[in-house]
């Protein structure tokens, strides 16, 4: 099943690496990645993932990453950037 996760992460060199490492390790293939710089301290990351596993597994693990400041599940099936669920916000 395909999903898109919208994250706001620290503008920190290792932040993206940690997100990708967790996605891979938890059994989610990253099929797309879009990164934009929100300001000097934050960047917005849209991550497309595919897995047979429940997306909740990945969302909960990503929430634990220190550099992840905000995290939302965006519904890909509706084909628009609609926030399905606010999961973490600082």
């Amino acid at each position, binding site marked *: 099943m395909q999903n898109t996760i919208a994250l706001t992460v620290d503008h920190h060199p*290792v932040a993206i690496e940690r997100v990708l490492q967790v996605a891979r390790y938890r059994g989610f293939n990253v099929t797309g990645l879009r990164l934009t710089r929100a300001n000097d301290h934050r960047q917005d990351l849209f991550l497309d993932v595919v897995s047979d596993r429940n997306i909740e*597994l990945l969302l*909960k693990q990503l*929430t*634990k990453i*220190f550099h992840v400041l905000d995290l939302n599940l965006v519904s890909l099936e509706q084909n628009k950037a609609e926030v399905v669920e606010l999961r973490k916000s600082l």
Partner: protein
Amino acid sequence: MTGADLITDYLEKHEVQHVFGYPGGAIMPIYDALYRSSVQHFLCRHEQGAGFAAIGYARATGKTGVCLATSGPGATNLLTALADAKLDSVPVVAITGQVSQAVMGTDAFQELDVLGLSLAVTKHSILVSHVDELSAALDEAFAVAQEGRPGPVLIDVPKNIQLEDCGLKVAEPSYQSSQNNSGVTANNETAIYHAQELLKIAQRPVAYIGGGVMMGSAVPALREFLSVTQIPAVSTLKALGSVARDYPHDLGMLGMHGRECANHAVQECDLLINLGARFDDRVTGELAGFAPNAKVIHIDIDAAELNKIRAADCGVLGNVRDVLPLLKVTTNCDAWRSHCQQLLSTYPWRYDAPGKGIYAPRLLRDLSDAMPTNSVVCADVGQHQMWIAQHMRFSHPQNHLSSGGLGTMGFSLPAGIGAQVARPQDPVFVICGDGSFMMNVQELGTIKRFQLPVKIVVIDNQRLGMVRQWQQLFFDGRYSETDLSDNPDFSTLAKAFDIPACYVENQSDVPAAMHELLNTSGPFLLHVRIDPDENVWPLVPPGAANHNMLTETN
């Protein structure tokens, strides 16, 4: 004040009294600062030993263990210990030296991408990029290591930053935790009510107690909960010692090598109350067949554990310590309690092994009965580890240190060193197999250097015992690379480190040897030879449900 001075100053101000480590080029400025510091450094003989010593220190007290290593191979030698801390949720801060920023990325001498290596084995890691960030990085590391579900944090400090003048000012603490470490959140009120209702109507409840009880400082709350509810209790490896020793409904450890009564009770229960445990595969056996008739209440401080392995009928996010007082309800399950008592009687442990040789379960039970109740037991990994869990009793989970999630051989000797440093007034026993003992045997040098009165018991079957047992049971007796009959003489080895030792192989010699072990004031090694073919029972084979245990008779 240089960056290195700031680090040692920070450690002093935050009451870090002991650190474990090994110096090297990239961390020399920090060691130079340590030379002038009141922080006591324990030189280990391998960075892995330093890492496990920090773990033992943390697990025996609940404080954060601190270890130091240099760049490159020093840092990589820490990784196994950091992984162990991650899987067992132990608060550790590792400070590593890194090559100077000017040469980072140029394949410099002893340079590695330690930050990259740390991603899989740490809760969080930081590469300090400016001396002005150092104080905040230390704040962040120590806070993250302890908050919520504890875990290891690594700080990698380039050498030039260690040497750089940071001025006399020390940055004010800036880290704001985003995690609520205590209290029950408002969203849990409905869940708490649901849990109370489930408890009231349950006819066959079982409390499944995990390591989160100890980590959440919830042992008193647990004992109070059990005394009110009188629910039969089973424990994971890390939770052993959480239940009061005189609690009549303690069924012991569950899982792959758990007690038969514990496994049967869980399989028959209609309500499983998971307190800070994670449904580890060593516990559940074949997952679809685990507690097949039970509704599940799952209380955990880590939201990622709720519904990860087993769906919870009632998930409560919070510290067990804060939730349990809200669940003290009277349960109506007298018949079930009687049934569990019957299970305890039906599946007793037996110690009447024939022959002159030493039966390890009996020796460990006798040692457990003889040692003071404030003793710390550090187990290594393998058959002896399971026998310790089965046959020894602990008055508190901080008195039983055992590598659970990673199952790292070589854990016990350095962990015992850390525990002894943390609790100098308490006896510390390192109990290991012959294979495990050899993995970090160099730490006998640390015991000698600091004259730590650690008591070491080597259960020697001249085999990699647990693997040998699996080869016997599941690989048609093809014993590939599990023969360790060319071990050195452990007594002579200990004496080379000025550690007195004695050897026994007959049961009749055990009482005198145990007396000498318990009454020697300094370090001591007891080398115990046992039958190489002795197996750990019961055993839940791979792919089987927990009620389908193999025993000695089947």
